[in-house]
């Protein structure tokens, strides 16, 4: 008992001093690499069962949701016609002034094979790792490469798997911009609650459901890790707070993390994203 407690304390101290570069972090990577195939196998078997029970739980709201989705699809179809026209104009303008997109990262598709094991960390494990060109600090998105929704960022890799810190995690933050008003701020994870955007100029008129996008600025002292324009979510409410320096808004993530299955890892390099 005394020996085990002593070893635990020694491990805490060693890991605290060595961080991600010590031998203990190496053991961690080995453990993750060993667990990843097992987690993938279990998830492959149990995901349909989980989806079935999840579907049963949501059965009463499915008909209503179906109608709502049909309405949204009709609206989206109408909007896509307009969007295609605007996109063509945009491309023509870029070609006209001899510009090209400063960031067009390649992406690696991956499957979510497991979640984190702790109630104090919001992470998922994906089935692609360093052997597939994935490295820490690469942004992870859902949706498509043309309309990406931000999921989080790669924090740890093994050869064939990687851990992704979700933007729900309390250690996650990114510079962001309100879509309509154009106000910039910083978005931080709040666990299972909505994200919190701070540093918004007081008095800014913020529309309900206003979209929030990433900016490539640095946030919380970390370099800009995200390309500009990734959709983070929509404003869910303005937080009443008596502060003349900054205003806070809550942001509901665009990604449904409960059903997250496929993601794209953008192969950017830290500090080289363009604003």
């Amino acid at each position: 008992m005394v020996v085990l407690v002593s070893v635990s304390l020694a491990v805490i101290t060693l890991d605290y001093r060595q961080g991600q570069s010590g031998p203990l972090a190496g053991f961690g990577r080995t453990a993750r690499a060993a667990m990843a195939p097992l987690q993938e196998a279990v998830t492959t078997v149990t995901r349909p069962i989980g989806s079935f029970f999840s579907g049963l739980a949501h059965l009463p709201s499915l008909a209503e949701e179906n109608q709502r989705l049909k309405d949204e699809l009709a609206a989206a179809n109408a909007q896509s016609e307009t969007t295609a026209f605007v996109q063509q104009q945009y491309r023509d303008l870029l070609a006209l002034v001899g510009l090209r997109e400063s960031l067009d990262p390649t992406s690696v598709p991956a499957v979510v094979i497991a979640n984190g094991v702790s109630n104090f960390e919001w992470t998922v494990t994906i089935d692609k790792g360093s052997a597939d060109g994935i490295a820490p600090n690469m942004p992870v998105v859902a949706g498509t490469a043309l309309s990406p929704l931000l999921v989080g960022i790669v924090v740890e890799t093994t050869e064939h798997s990687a851990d992704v810190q979700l933007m729900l995690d309390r250690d996650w933050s990114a510079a962001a911009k309100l879509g309509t008003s154009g106000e910039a701020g910083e978005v931080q994870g709040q666990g299972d609650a909505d994200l919190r955007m701070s540093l918004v100029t007081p008095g800014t008129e913020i529309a309900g459901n206003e979209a929030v996008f990433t900016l490539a600025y640095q946030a919380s002292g970390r370099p800009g890790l995200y390309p500009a324009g990734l959709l983070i979510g929509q404003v869910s409410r303005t937080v009443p707070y008596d502060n003349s320096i900054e205003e806070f808004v809550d942001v509901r993530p665009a990604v449904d993390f409960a059903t997250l299955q496929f993601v794209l890892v953008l192969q950017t390099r830290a500090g080289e994203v363009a604003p």
Partner: protein
Amino acid sequence: MLRRVLTVAAVIITALLLQSTIFAQIKLLGVRPELLYLVTIVIAILEGPQEGAVVGFAGGMMQDFLLNQPKGITALTLTLLGYAVGMARQYIVSPSPLLPTFLVAAGTAAGIAFYEVVSFLLGQLDQPLSYSVKVIVLTALYNAVLTPIFYPLLRRLFEGSRPQRVVRF
């Protein structure tokens, strides 16, 4: 002895797999169970403080290596928890079939609270107090609900892997 070690390893790995896959989807008000706490407490009840501490240490260390937090905090927590529950069990004389469920609930709550305090002291816990309390209460409740399912399974497993005593005349 080897069979015993393999049984413990299999139980720990299965608990971690279940926690990171199935139980990550089946949450109780946003909180998942802590299966290694449950396993450690049940083994401490069945086998005593020494085995509880060893299994807690092994399971906790394994879980720590899967986290992006300083290693060793879960190992320390579960070692102390396994030993404490095993010791407490020796002094509790109750025929109640609900005793394991009660011990799992109380042990989980105490263990999670200890983990949070140590993480906070190391500057690794950045949660509001309300969330910390919610996790303590709901994981204790969730683990208690799971105890009637896992306790008989673990008892059968560990009784089967117990070294046979050979009496020579």
